[in-house]
């Protein structure tokens, strides 16, 4: 579905990553500083690779040889950031509708209600992000990314800023999201436990390179 083959020099770090996703949820797994977030930013269009190609299905998003570089706002790729990045000056409802409006999609109340119910954020709609807990904020961020009807969902350590109890609270929502939304996911984490719950394919990244790619058995190798 998603095929990535990119090179990028960032300071002293050289990133050269190549992989293709197979299942509905793929983990980018590896230690902090391995370059996982940079890879995800390149997929989203926030960081321009020096060389390479990124294709989502039949759509080429980036191809240095063919001089194709679709700007981030036209890629239709949902992105959930580690710190949520909700817009502080908008209510939860305005945050949720932002992507749909900016992408020029018609209002779809059934879909909105479904996702609001799925994430259990119906009681938060009139609040502003400053008045939400960390877990609530991340749930709204999932909803905001999903409601733009993305072709792919990027989740960059979405639970990293939460304590253990909040993580356990959110993991089931993520699992439901994966099963019910039909949107393929890239899940970035250095936590084997989260990946085990959510993903079927693992791409292990170390020092800017793909060390291994395969099934969940790769997590065990890394754990010992």
């Amino acid at each position, binding site marked *: 579905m998603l095929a990535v083959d990119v090179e990028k020099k960032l300071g002293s770090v050289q990133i050269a990553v190549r992989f293709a996703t197979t299942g509905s949820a793929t983990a980018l797994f590896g230690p902090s500083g391995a370059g996982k977030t940079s890879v995800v930013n390149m997929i989203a269009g926030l960081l321009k690779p020096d060389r390479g190609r990124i294709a989502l299905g039949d759509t080429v998003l980036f191809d240095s040889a063919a001089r194709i570089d679709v700007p981030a706002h036209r890629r239709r790729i949902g992105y959930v950031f580690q710190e949520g990045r909700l817009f502080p000056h908008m209510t939860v409802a305005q945050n949720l509708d*932002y992507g749909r409006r900016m992408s020029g999609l018609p209002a779809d109340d059934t879909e909105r209600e479904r996702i609001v119910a799925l994430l259990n954020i119906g009681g938060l709609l009139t609040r502003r992000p400053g*008045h939400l807990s960390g877990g609530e904020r991340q749930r709204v961020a999932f909803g905001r990314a999903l409601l733009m009807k993305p072709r792919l969902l990027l989740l960059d350590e979405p639970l990293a800023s939460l304590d253990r109890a909040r993580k356990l609270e959110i993991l089931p929502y993520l699992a439901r999201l994966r099963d019910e939304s039909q949107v393929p996911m890239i899940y970035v984490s250095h936590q084997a436990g989260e990946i085990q719950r959510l993903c079927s394919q693992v791409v292990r990244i170390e020092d800017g390179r793909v060390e291994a790619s395969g099934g969940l058995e790769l997590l065990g190798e890394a754990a010992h």
Partner: protein
Amino acid sequence: MFSLTPEEWTAVELSLRIALVATFVALPFGLAVAWLLARKDFWGKALLDGIVHLPLVLPPVVTGYLLLVTFGRRGLVGSFLADIGIVFSFRWTGAALACGIMGFPLLVRAIRLSFEAIDRRLEDAASTLGANRLWTFFTVTLPLALPGVIAGMVLCFAKALGEFGATITFVSNIPGETQTISAAIYTFTQIPGGDAAAFRLVAIAVVIALFALIASEWFARRAGMRYHGD
């Protein structure tokens, strides 16, 4: 003692009009220049920054004289504009131009600082949600910079209200056309028995300035509150 003569009213009304027009006409330019300085690296950036700040450090008389040479009827730009019917010299529009230029560095400075303080990752988030750069600016950057924009506008307005040297050099001191509060106060202090009139205008200048400060504080507080709920 506190009833104003028609001449004094005219000066007050003219000052407000000039300061408001100067501030609102300067605003779009101020936003553009502040954005360029905060977000872009380009050849001649230091020069642009310097030129913008020049009116702040030059003697106002020098700025006024340069405006006269440039925008006067026989000036470089002025003679061209006069041909198409736009005249600045000795008109209230010229006073607004002078005031706008004098207030511009204060406006740009405040807006630039607030642009630089914005978390740019929020703008990245907006672009992944489908917002192009223009929409990102109007839906994320500008609303988040609002307290700074308001502060800059108040500073520019206050500067325009108090501007004296550049204005009087460029457009002179014509009652009803270019005689602002400051120029009127100056005139009244030069004539015997003008103290009472000067004092009334001084009191009005203080009231307007205080009102502008309180209003801007209120607006900025309201804008700031929106980030934390309520």
